[in-house]
């Protein structure tokens, strides 16, 4: 699929390669993640709530519609994060898969979960801003008690 952005100026820069959803993508030093991805693809990520493709909007860190995920799980705002060689990005499809997975505490007891240092249930809740997911999380908690 053809990319969205087009380079017009300042193209004599050092090459950098990043990895997006497992694909190697060519970029130039000084590109934001958003620029690098959209030069090669027609969209940037999927929205967490409606799962529709998005390509960012304001490009100035205000609208928050360009968050992607590093392979290490760190969230990255694509319009204000710059490429570096070998950086691995997941654009949201994998994130959606994580969001519908049951909380890791499902088989454990509630007290054990609360004492867990990994913040697992809190993390899952903050991730899951989608109403459906929230309901699922609540149902799982009721199951425990």
């Amino acid at each position: 699929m053809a990319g969205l952005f087009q380079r017009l100026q300042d193209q004599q820069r050092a090459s950098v390669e990043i990895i997006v959803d497992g694909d190697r993508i060519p970029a130039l030093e000084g590109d934001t993640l958003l620029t690098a991805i959209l030069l090669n693809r027609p969209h940037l990520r999927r929205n967490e709530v409606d799962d529709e493709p998005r390509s960012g909007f304001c490009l100035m860190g205000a609208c928050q519609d360009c968050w992607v995920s590093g392979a290490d799980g760190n969230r990255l705002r694509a319009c204000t994060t710059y490429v570096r060689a070998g950086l691995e990005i997941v654009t949201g499809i994998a994130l959606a898969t994580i969001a519908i997975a049951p909380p890791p505490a499902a088989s454990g007891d509630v007290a054990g979960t609360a004492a867990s240092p990994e913040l697992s249930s809190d993390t899952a809740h903050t991730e899951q801003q989608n109403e459906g997911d929230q309901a699922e999380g609540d149902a799982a908690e009721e199951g425990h008690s």
Partner: protein
Amino acid sequence: MTPRVLIIGAGPAGLRAAELLVARGVRPILVDEAPRIGGQIYRLPPQVAGFTRSGSALYGSQATKANALFQSFERIRDKVDYRPSSLVFDLIDSSAEVLGENGVARIEFDALILATGAMDRVLPFEGWTLPGIYSLGGAQIALKHQGCSIGRSVVFAGTGPLLFLTAYQYAKAGAQIAAVINSGPRLGAVSQLFKLMAMPEALRQGMHYVSYLKHHKIRILHGYRPLRAHALKTENGSEEQRLGMLEFISDRGDRLEVDCDAAAFGYGLKAETQLADLAGASFGFDAVNHQWLPLADAYGRAQERPGLYLAGDGAGILGADAAELRGQLAAAAVLSDHGQGFGDFDPNAALRRLQKWQKFRAALELAFPFPHETAAEIADEVVLCRCEHVTAGDLRGISGVLGARDLNRAKAYCRLGMGRCQGRLCAAAAAEVMAAELGVSVDSVGRLRGQPPVKPVPVAALAAMSTGANAIAESSTTDATVEA
């Protein structure tokens, strides 16, 4: 005693405020979210070899002003505690919580100058979340900051000076422009146009952009606003989830279709006021800006909130030149309130100049009107809140229900404005939609209260702060957009 002054924002207002404070022996802390100075208006490319465009290539006729601003900061650079790439995400009493590259820090201050700037004001239309559609400011940043066009064939829509400026910059850079379509009236038809003579140089520049576009045979139309974005149809008849055509409508109901793979739109600018809210400013509805703004005196002193000062477009849109004056005035007020003089700075000359910008701004609103009344016509299925996928119909459905007659109650019922952007993008349009549905004036549905963190912050950073560990764990995976 020398006050501890915190300036938030390193655009024209913040930089000029810092300069005046330094001249009087104050060492301000200047915090900015971006890695380099300039704000959005004078945004610089990344500091990387190969970005070689000159100031005039980047800023056109504004290059002299941009360079003067950059040079003034160079001269005071070592007298300012400048903290780039740092986000102020909360303000509590006389301290700011700041997320920088090395974790969270708390900054105590005696005086706070907010120079938080502005962003595009938008009215949603059907399909505006399709890939390829950006704000005008976003399209401009793609070019200024990255040397890129947002697409192969770009349509510019909406209204305001930024519409013609951005189209002009794209044309100069060699981008292909499908059309420039102004939602407002043809400029010659604006009866109050003479009022723009309050700032003849700015008017002349605006005229130059339009004539450049005309000279290069770029299609310019007036009186049409975006109605619906259509996905790209492929040759076998299926749809790709990206922009293929933008459909427009005139006030008389005439339709217009423009093929394009990218679009940039906006209806002027809106002040960024979330930090002013957290700082405790009082707000009033401003008729010219059509927005709730922090209340302040001519110097930028916040009403009923000693120690808070507002400067630049974050205190109401007046543009970059006015922002430089407002930065100086706010700094002068800080100095004066701490019993210090302000040298050879002449506040009265700055105030007189500012009055001219205010006249010009009022005239711009007539030349490029915000079509807020069309919010009532936004179809029910149109997404208002792009973070949480809340539609105009969702908002109308709960308007008036169980006492929901204001935006904050509506937020609790339908999650509008509860997403990561904290309503920054949707609130202006949502207020219009809700007011129209209830048949009341837009100010009576109120405004969304600012909530910390104003932008997403990793939970691990907050946890590290509360335990006194001043660092962000490498493993942080979650950001909190705390709502309750």
